[in-house]
């Protein structure tokens, strides 16, 4: 028992690790909730693109701070993220461009701009690695406060507009019929995804950000069939996966971002296999039921 307690308590002796764990709890929770909308609306590519599109903003923050590691990533990242979301929303309004094309365009342009800005710094490789793969151990008390504030804002807006977000995600025709501000809600959701990504950027970095956004939600989707249940399960998976991944990285001496993502992916795989087996075991009974309820459909065909 003592060994088990020591296993969990030992890393907590360090203040920077305690801050890192708190950051993971916050990031896991926010990403899981917003990630559910990303998964059910098929916005995974958008999430990945946004995570990369924040790079120029983050890079500008670095440059403004003279390349200091303590530079505030949130301000620049948030600006670039919101700008990217608005650009994509603008390019896709009225079906002028297909969504994936607009996302691809904005994504590569902004990412390239970010690389160009960072390349002007003398510590190019160090900075790029820090931004791409995150630095969970470098999270300050101030970063935590900003994460908590941004996370609370995202959760509050999602909670207040939950009904509206569900309607525009499930059936746009109803949204129009009852005169919801569909375009405004769509843009707002894209902005919320941007804020979520920026809030979690320091935990896992740009390259692995998408995993935090979609893996817990995808895992929860396999286990639930109502959106609010999916959000609850995704939050549990997101937080537990984050913490487990962190402990794994501590004891296996692995980069924390990679370890967290691999832990979450393993959880998804386990649930997927378990669900597939469960469905196979239940199949004979459900087949019998569906056969019993089916009736023959007769269709008149044209005789030539």
């Amino acid at each position, binding site marked *: 028992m003592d060994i088990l307690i020591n296993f969990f308590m030992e890393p907590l002796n360090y203040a920077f690790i305690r801050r890192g764990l708190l950051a993971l709890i916050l990031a896991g929770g926010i990403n899981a909730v917003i990630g559910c909308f990303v998964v059910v609306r098929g916005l995974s590519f958008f999430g990945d693109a946004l995570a990369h599109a924040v790079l120029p903003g983050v890079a500008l923050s670095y440059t403004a701070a003279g390349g200091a590691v303590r530079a505030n990533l949130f301000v620049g990242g948030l600006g670039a993220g919101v700008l990217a979301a608005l650009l994509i929303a603008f390019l896709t309004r009225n079906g002028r461009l297909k969504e994936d094309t607009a996302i691809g365009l904005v994504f590569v342009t902004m990412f390239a701009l970010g690389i160009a800005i960072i390349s002007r710094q003398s510590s190019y490789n160090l900075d790029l690695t820090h931004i791409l793969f995150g630095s969970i151990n470098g999270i300050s008390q101030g970063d935590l406060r900003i994460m908590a504030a941004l996370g609370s804002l995202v959760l509050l807006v999602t909670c207040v507009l939950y009904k509206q977000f569900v309607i525009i995600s499930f059936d746009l025709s109803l949204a129009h019929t009852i005169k*919801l501000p569909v375009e405004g809600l769509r843009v707002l959701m894209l902005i919320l995804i941007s804020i979520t990504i920026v809030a979690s950027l320091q935990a896992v970095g740009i390259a692995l950000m998408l995993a935090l956004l979609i893996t817990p939600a995808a895992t929860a989707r396999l286990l639930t069939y109502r959106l609010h249940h999916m959000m609850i399960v995704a939050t549990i998976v997101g937080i537990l996966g984050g913490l487990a991944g962190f402990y794994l990285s501590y004891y296996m001496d692995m980069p924390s971002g990679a370890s967290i993502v691999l832990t979450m992916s393993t959880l998804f795989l386990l649930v997927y296999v378990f669900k597939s087996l469960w469905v196979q075991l239940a199949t004979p009974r459900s087949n019998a039921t569906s056969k019993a309820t089916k009736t023959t459909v007769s*269709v008149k065909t044209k005789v030539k």
Partner: protein
Amino acid sequence: MTDTQPSKNEHILTAPALAVRNLCAGYPGDQYAIDQLTFSVGSGERVALIGPNGAGKSTLFKVVAGLIPITHGTISIGGEDYRSSHASIGYIPQQNEIDWSFPVAVRDVIMMGRAHRSRWLPWWRASDHTAVQALLEQLNLTALANRQISQISGGQRRRVFIARALAQGSRVLLMDEPFTGVDTAAQQEIMNTLDVLTHQGITILLATHDMGRAARDFDRILLLKRHMLAFDVPQAVVKPDVLQQAYGAALTVFQEGRKTMFIVGEHGAEG
């Protein structure tokens, strides 16, 4: 109020449930998908909308539901401009326009119809729950209330969407091809539900390719091919010379004794 001059309220009470005047609409860049359409439908009336693919049936529904803007003309619902009464229009889109894998239960879908009543409240009110429960019972969906929408049959899904439209408080129901991909038993169940609704004074416009059902079960038929080609009782519309205006060579006419049969592709009717 005097005997000779009806008040504004009386005008609304006696106004058609749906009135369309000189309506032109369509997607940008195209010629009008519907052109100079004028018709009106009374309260509790049941109208079948028929016409070949691309005739503008879905476009008409989307315009009335407010999804596509009007280019020219007017639409009124119960005497009021349609833009001020969207909640009273229940629109049931084609099956392929809905993501059936979406994680919502039957109860959640019906509840969506109540969203405009407590628009900016984050929670549902007790009256919303009561109304949804009553609709589940009325449409015989109680046993399916907590099932995911993908786990019920096509016919049941149509009834769920009818329940959602009723939860909206709709007095005009627009149903876009609700019989497509639904077996005959389920089609009859939908018709039985519509019988009850028309008795309650709800107006129904239903797009279908099934001319047999249109002729049998509807008060009037609107034959559409961008323009309105006919709008009359079924006996006056389901006739070779009238139908050929819309379907042209695609229409085959069979004579079997005193019966005339019309076949358009896979869909037939007797006249």
